């Protein structure tokens, strides 16, 4: 890890933070169609994991997917345009926040169904294995999805076929508005043992810890050693979705929220880097400013983009045979 590598990790987390802050503001202003799930507080997981992937490697994402996509290199302009329902968006306005994909970057899709990406990532790994490619697939899923049956099916299938898939659980401790530990037996990482594959818990607010755990799992998968399960412990600073307070009321202890904000993955990594002399606080501020500008430019691009033609709603259902 060079100093530049460290700063790149920070910059990507800062990009996600700036994107999400902008989205949050747009939602509050009432200018964003639909609803959004913010990744603020969990940036170290997506960035740490994607930092060890090549462009050809693949990910599947979740309903809380903006961070994974940006971490894998998605274009903020096209993302913002999609969130605003514009013709220039990644999905021409047909997908929205929960369904952004960019197959050219190996982003097989955010997914509105909790656990929906688990089988898809498994199939992606199956294709790589059968076609003899050395690519890997990182399957992001949440603690909520850990209680879907498809997790167990996907772990089993990946294990018996030794598929190059890294199952990365972002445990933010809340399944929608329920405390996950109250509806979940045992530790999520321990479930790996039942399938005879490695399972580890990692501090999901420590970008380097996530990166190290992901690197080990990716290396193993690439070498034909099969799947792994990583449980990254983290927290979402905001709600399940923006605007939830009108129906949810407070459901998390304020002390708990404060505790996790004190362990903010960006501030923490910045402070560590400053302490080790990797960069100065002013340099970090510059990075945040630069990423903030990038997101503002993305918003201007999106806002200036046209809405899709209504008739385009009928396009893109089927591919034409060659």
């Amino acid at each position, binding site marked *: 890890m060079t100093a530049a590598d460290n700063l790149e990790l920070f910059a990507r987390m800062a990009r996600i933070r700036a994107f999400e802050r902008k989205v949050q503001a747009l939602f509050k202003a009432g200018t964003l169609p639909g609803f959004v799930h913010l990744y603020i507080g969990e940036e170290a997981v997506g960035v740490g994991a994607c930092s060890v992937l090549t462009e050809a490697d693949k990910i599947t994402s979740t309903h809380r997917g903006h961070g994974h996509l940006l971490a894998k290199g998605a274009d903020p302009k096209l993302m913002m345009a999609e969130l605003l329902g514009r013709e220039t968006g990644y999905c021409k306005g047909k997908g929205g926040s929960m369904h952004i994909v960019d197959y050219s970057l190996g982003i097989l899709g955010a997914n509105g169904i909790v656990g929906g990406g688990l089988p898809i990532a498994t199939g992606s790994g199956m294709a790589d294995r059968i076609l003899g490619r050395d690519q890997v697939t990182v399957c992001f899923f949440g603690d909520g999805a850990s209680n879907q049956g*498809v997790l167990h*099916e996907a772990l089993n299938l990946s294990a018996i076929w030794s598929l190059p898939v890294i199952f990365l659980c972002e445990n933010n401790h809340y399944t929608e508005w329920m405390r996950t530990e109250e509806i979940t037996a045992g530790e999520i990482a321990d479930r790996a043992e039942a399938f005879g594959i490695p399972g580890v818990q990692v501090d999901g607010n420590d970008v380097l810890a996530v990166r190290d755990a992901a690197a080990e799992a990716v290396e193993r998968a690439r070498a034909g050693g099969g799947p792994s399960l990583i449980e990254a412990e983290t927290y979402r600073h905001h709600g399940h979705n923006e605007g939830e307070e009108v129906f949810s009321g407070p459901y998390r202890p304020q002390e708990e929220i404060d505790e996790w904000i004190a362990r903010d993955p960006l501030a923490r990594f910045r402070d560590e880097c400053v302490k080790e002399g990797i960069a100065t606080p002013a340099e970090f501020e510059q990075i945040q400013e630069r990423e903030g500008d990038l997101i503002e430019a993305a918003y201007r691009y999106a806002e200036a983009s046209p809405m899709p033609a209504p008739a385009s709603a009928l396009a893109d259902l089927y591919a034409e045979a060659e």
Partner: protein
Amino acid sequence: MTETLAKDTYMTTAIAGALRAAMAADESVVVLGEDVELSTIGCTKGLVEEFGADRVRNSPISEATVVGACVGAAASGLRPVMDLMFSSFFYVAMDQVANQAARLRYMSGGQVDLPLVYFAGTGPSGSAAAQHSENPHPILMHLAGIKVVFPSSPGDAAGLLIASVEDPNPVVFLLDLMLAGAKGPVPTDLEPLPLGKAEVKRSGEDVTVVAIASAAGTALEVAAELEEDGVSVEVIDPRTLSPFDWDAVTDSVARTGRLVVVDPARRTCGAAAEIIARVAERNWADLKSRPRRVTWEDVPIPFSPVLEEAVTVRKDSVRDAVLAGVEEKGAG
């Protein structure tokens, strides 16, 4: 395609032959599912010996994940063909069928092709009871984003299966289990038959009978019998339900002025309901009598042979419906 099949070929043999031809023609075609190596029905028999365990894979009984894995694999360069064994098991995997396979291309703004086939035996096969006798084609037709193929003869099955594997979209290919032991001619050189193209199985003047899968054979028997009574019946087999060859049906009704739809599925929101609605929209002025439908009753398929027969499509019901349409006066 160089596959050669006998003139009088079993449906299952025709399907196995088409799969073999498709796998030989394209190395990215893989077959997976429960017991595809042993192949209980016979449609995947011999494939593992010929193409190896990498491309022909027994999968665990994990319908949801295997159905979804086909989506991920298809997005990543394979052309998976999954055998679900019984179509009732689609319901186990419905999230991956409806929310993923049928949606991902559209939701992505057309970024990805998903060339995959979900193959399943379907329909009543003799006291298999409610969880092994389903015909899910109406639900699948409603989804938008999944093609649905439901052939009535070995020759059609072979050609349509090759086309299904070559198609860049998710295709559900249904084998009517009433036809598993049926025989028929299959071309010696297998060629793809276009999806979305109906076939007139018998030409006639007085009434159009649209009959799906094994009902096509029933309708042809009725048509032959009624010819002796001076009633000329046209039998159309849609072969593909999504996309549907609406022109074939409406052109026929424009000539005959009468329609009977025989759909092996429950009545409410079945394929017959949609076909009759389309004809009512397009052919109102042509109709000489009310369109009629012969379907299952709106109950799950019961176990006892007597009960099963009571709720499914019977030949006498088809005959009665055709005659009632021909004899009706004063409509249209």
